[in-house]
């Protein structure tokens, strides 16, 4: 194996980004390797382990965890189709099938093998049949890539690509494509241009208050530093660098800024947990792992206005006293990562990053770190573990609160992209002025991402609470599609509890209908749901709520990291139950079992994923009870589809086998790692 000098240089450069621990360079090296060689071979695992002074298992653990790393080659053109809720509502399953048909891939057979089910009807003859084509190697998460017989094309159904407002979306190799027409599927294979920086609209809606998205949707505007500077960019940074960090912190506290990642935690309070001047360095991490289904706000900031984010980050680092920061961007934004890299280089060249920024004496190094397709990396301690080059298993709290024991066991601040951008504006206008936007305790603006069954899905930046859910849907988003009516809304990303049309909520002793619900943190919490990440998914009366929940359950079953028991087992169980109900096999006890399983997960797990995966089930069951009971009528469970036995799987080469070393003549399954 020869590694070209250029790749080696890139590898050395990547390692240099992690002065504290080489291990952190695991993901960057795997990305570099896959970009060059097409997939991660066993040899690659060993080479990278040696390079980073790790055990090979440490690297293998990552390769098998992150879906974006593949251990077999994909087709020359590899298309990732988004499977998650908004895209599937817009036809992503049909899109995948059309793509498969145009590439001569037998997706139906392939799919059955992924499930580990035998072919054919329920007859007793399920003798093993040799699999055709090169497809599946492992029932389970193993290899989700279906390759065409000629090896030219491959399809992968992936979870949320974070562009729900322009569903269905896909990535052709690294090129992002949106609003894909199923009829045009075949032409997708020849895609040569990306739509990642395309503007969706040209004119903000009059109800909007654009602060963060001021520069979004300006046709022809570049995302380079010159453009940003000409608009008065980095002036806030200059102002900040001439102030005292304590005063800046005070401004942020005064602004009442609440985190935009999902939990809505007050940003100033979070920052004040950092004890300045301790023996350990402080780190700041930008959480750009946007992955809550229904949320697609950070995508536009990163692709169209990267310098706003960088400026917000530099100011935030100066405020909390961090000299090293990372921008953890989700793996599904390869183009975004390049844009950020370029922007960072520009900033560095202008003295806005590095040593003695703008002569202030403040030093900051800021690097981009790419994830590789894992929702759990959006959980801040999971993100930290991932950044340390480990499996992104969230940490137990206590004792691992990031502000005390974060990255490399040092005090660490993790903030969402949008939150960090707000900091720039707070410095610009002052905390008090900022706090006047929105409502008390719900200050500032908020980017609402609307997807699903509305006329004009998209992103809308509004003053927090200045708009009700009804106004958002009917006025801003142009209402429901013709002839359809509202059935339900998920107001804050797919983990937020669903709200049903016609529901009444008690808010501050007032009865409020769904349409009159203000879109702010406190009102949505009072309605029993949450503002979450701002992803609003609208469903109309044609939607089958069992199928919707099944789609959500599949997402969480796929994204559970598997560290702790309730979520690992429960998320998959819920998915299997709704799978069966959707397939017509629902039994009377299913709704009660589903609810109880969800109850047994929520509040019992290491991280908030437990709640995230059980709230949809709990709320869909409670709000759309009749739909679930109507599909759960059988007294006894139906017979299961025939399943390959272990011997059949081995005979079919689905599972590689080795001869039993102790000579009983049988073949046994090879260790999981070799499959």
């Amino acid at each position, binding site marked *: 194996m020869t590694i070209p000098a250029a790749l080696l240089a890139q590898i050395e450069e990547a390692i240099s980004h992690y002065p504290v621990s080489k291990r952190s360079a695991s993901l960057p090296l795997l990305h570099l390797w896959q970009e060059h060689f097409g997939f991660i071979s*066993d040899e690659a*695992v*060993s080479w990278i382990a040696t390079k980073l002074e790790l*055990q*090979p*298992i440490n690297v*293998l*653990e990552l390769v*098998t*965890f992150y879906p974006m790393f593949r251990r077999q080659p994909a087709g020359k053109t590899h298309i990732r189709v988004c499977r998650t809720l908004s895209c599937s509502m817009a036809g992503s399953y049909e899109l995948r099938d059309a793509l498969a048909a145009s590439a001569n891939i037998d997706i139906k057979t392939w799919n059955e093998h992924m499930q*580990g089910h035998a072919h054919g009807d329920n007859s007793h003859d399920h003798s093993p049949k040799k699999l055709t084509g090169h497809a599946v190697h492992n*029932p*389970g*998460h*193993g290899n989700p890539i279906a390759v065409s017989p000629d090896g030219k094309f491959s399809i992968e159904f992936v979870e949320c690509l974070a562009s729900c407002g322009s569903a269905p979306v896909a990535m052709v190799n690294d090129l992002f494509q949106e609003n894909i027409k199923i009829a045009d599927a075949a032409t997708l294979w020849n895609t040569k241009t990306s739509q990642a920086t395309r503007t969706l609209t040209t004119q903000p809606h009059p109800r909007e208050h654009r602060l963060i998205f001021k520069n979004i949707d300006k046709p022809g505007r570049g995302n380079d530093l010159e453009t940003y500077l000409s608009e008065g960019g980095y002036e806030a940074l200059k102002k900040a660098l001439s102030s005292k960090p304590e005063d800046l912190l005070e401004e942020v506290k005064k602004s009442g800024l609440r985190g935009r990642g999902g939990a809505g935690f007050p940003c100033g309070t979070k920052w004040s947990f950092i004890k300045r001047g301790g023996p350990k360095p402080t780190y700041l991490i930008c959480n750009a792992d946007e992955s809550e289904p229904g949320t697609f706000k950070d995508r536009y900031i990163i692709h169209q206005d990267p310098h706003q984010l960088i400026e917000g980050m530099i100011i935030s680092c100066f405020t909390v006293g961090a000299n090293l920061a990372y921008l953890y961007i989700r793996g599904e934004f390869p183009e975004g990562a390049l844009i950020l890299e370029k922007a960072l280089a520009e900033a560095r060249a202008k003295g806005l990053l590095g040593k003695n920024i703008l002569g202030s004496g403040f030093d900051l190094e800021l690097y981009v770190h790419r994830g590789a397709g*894992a929702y759990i990396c959006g959980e801040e301690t999971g993100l930290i573990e991932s950044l340390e080059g480990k*499996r992104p*298993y969230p940490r*137990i709290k*206590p*004792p691992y609160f990031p502000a005390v024991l974060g990255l490399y066991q040092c005090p660490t601040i993790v903030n969402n992209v949008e939150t960090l951008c707000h900091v720039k504006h707070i410095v610009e206008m002052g905390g008090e002025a900022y706090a006047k936007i929105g409502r008390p305790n719900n200050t500032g603006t908020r980017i609402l991402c609307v997807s699903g069954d509305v006329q004009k899905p998209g992103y809308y930046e509004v003053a927090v609470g200045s708009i009700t859910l009804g106004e958002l849907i009917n006025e801003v988003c142009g209402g429901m599609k013709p002839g359809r009516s509202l059935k339900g809304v998920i107001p804050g990303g797919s983990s937020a509890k669903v709200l049903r049309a016609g529901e009444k909520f008690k808010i501050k002793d007032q009865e409020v209908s769904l349409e009159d619900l203000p879109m702010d943190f406190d009102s949505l919490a009072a309605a029993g749901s949450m503002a979450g990440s701002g992803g609003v998914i609208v469903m109309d009366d044609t939607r089958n709520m069992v199928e919707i929940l099944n789609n959500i359950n599949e997402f969480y*079953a*796929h994204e*559970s*990291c*598997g*560290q*702790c*028991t*309730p979520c*690992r*087992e*429960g*998320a*998959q*169980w819920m998915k*299997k*139950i709704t799978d*069966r109900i959707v397939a017509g096999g629902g039994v009377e006890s299913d709704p009660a*079992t589903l609810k109880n399983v969800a*109850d*047994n*997960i929520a*509040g*019992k*797990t*290491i991280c908030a994923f437990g709640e995230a995966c059980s709230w949809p089930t709990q709320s869909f069951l409670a709000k759309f009870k009749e739909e679930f009971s109507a599909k759960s009528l059988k007294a006894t469970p139906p017979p*299961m589809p025939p*399943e390959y036995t*272990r011997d059949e*799987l081995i005979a079919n080469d689905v599972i590689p086998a080795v001869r*039993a070393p102790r000579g009983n003549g049988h073949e*046994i*399954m*090879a*260790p*999981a*790692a*070799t*499959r």
Partner: protein
Amino acid sequence: MSTEVPLLNVQVDGVWMQFPKGTKLIDACNKAGKFIPHYCYHPKLSIPGNCRMCLIEMGMPKMGPDRKPIMAADGHAEIAWIPRAQISCAQDIVEGMGVRTDSPMVQECRKGVMEFLLINHPLDCPICDQAGECRLQEFSVEYGNAESRFLERKVKKPKNVELGPRVTLDAERCVLCSRCIRFMKEVAHDDVLGFVDRGGFSTIACHPDKTLESNYSLNTVDICPVGALTSTDFRFKMRVWFLKETKTIDVSDGLGCNILIGSREDKIFRITPRENNDVNQFWMPDSHRLAYKAIHSENRLTQPTVDSKPVEWSEAIAVALSSLKAAGSLAMVASARLTNEELYLARHLAKALNITLHDVIPRKGQPDGILIPEDRNPNTAGAKLLGLTGETPGTALPELLDAVRKGTIQGIVCLGEDLTECGFSLEDLAKLKALVTTSTHSNATTKAAHVVLPGTVWAEKRGSMINIHGRLQRLNKAVEPIGHAKDDWEILAALLAGAGSNLSLHSIEDVFRALSQDVAQFNGLNLGKIGDLGIQLLPKAEVATPTA
């Protein structure tokens, strides 16, 4: 150890108790008699908090506006109960905190976790080696559900995977507690295990280029709370509930790992380490646990012989003494593998036979940095204390060999050693007029000896030894001696009696009594007082071996 650890007040199920600061809540509850079920928590490993079995209801002292706890009428802090269940393994106790270990919330949590752990488990208890000592079984009885609600296909995972030469994995039984991964990384310092895949498909694995071959690999089997990791040696050999467990010590090296011998009808099936925080903690090397295989090996001696002919014991003893007397000048090669009791009698025998030249054969090896020390003899300290050897064992051996070669020594009493191990050639042995040896297995010395007296191995006898740290530990008898082999103290006592000693010895207790009256360090002790965990007899030696 500091005695100044402050005690904190913690309310356990309504009762206020005190525990030293730094105690984990799970351990505090255990001390209070409220066992908290758990899988992933292990006191000697890092805490991942992943099994969620130890969830409890917890409360913190209620704080007043002055940030001071509000005191209730009973003088203790009022408790504000946290509505969300907490894991007790990662929580250090805090002054004034409260815990409910069996409230409805806690019961609900345990029931839920037990159900989750079993839905994808193969439920193959009838053929599982862990059955009988499986935490899944135990907690199922106490906290599980009688009926399964799971109507779906179970996840298929690898079975019969040989992770290494001694450990076999059944991934479907695994609860992914990561104890084995953490042990290999943190204690064995051989980071070969990890998780592959994710979510419900997560599986323990070794990198294909590596195997779990560390000399500590079998400890992963011990700490595996379920039947996922099994010992390839013990697999399918015996149901664990038929095993008689004997608490004794390992004699493979100077540390003397505390162990349990699992035997049935005088056959040993397995050896597992026994917790002793002053010696081996919870661990033991693989090499030591498989040492039992030698006990029933082909070359085991079962019959006393004179000039290779089987004889009765009485005749063997008589011939031994008469040939030694006839030989004239004698020497003794004893063994630092003998118990204190045997060494004590050996010294008396030396005196009775006018032997002044005696020593033991030292055994040294590279320490492994974990448990195995340089000294591979289990009772060097005993041999020194009881005067069979000097400060540096083995120094008299060259002189002894020289004397044999010169002919100034013409008879040797060899106790459980092979003289070819300390430089004797077969010619040297042939020169001796009398060579009397006790031994458990045949070797070059027994082949050359005039009288061979078959002794017992460590698992067949009682007695005591002193480890490299000066700790007096006790051996117990797990199985009966094989054939006509006799306990070594009985052989030595018979030789002593024949040599005219007036010691009255009818049992091992008699020997220990004589020893304790004779040797100051043993004053006031008896075998019972040594207890299962041993006692510090000599000042802790400086030969500090790094322990895990």
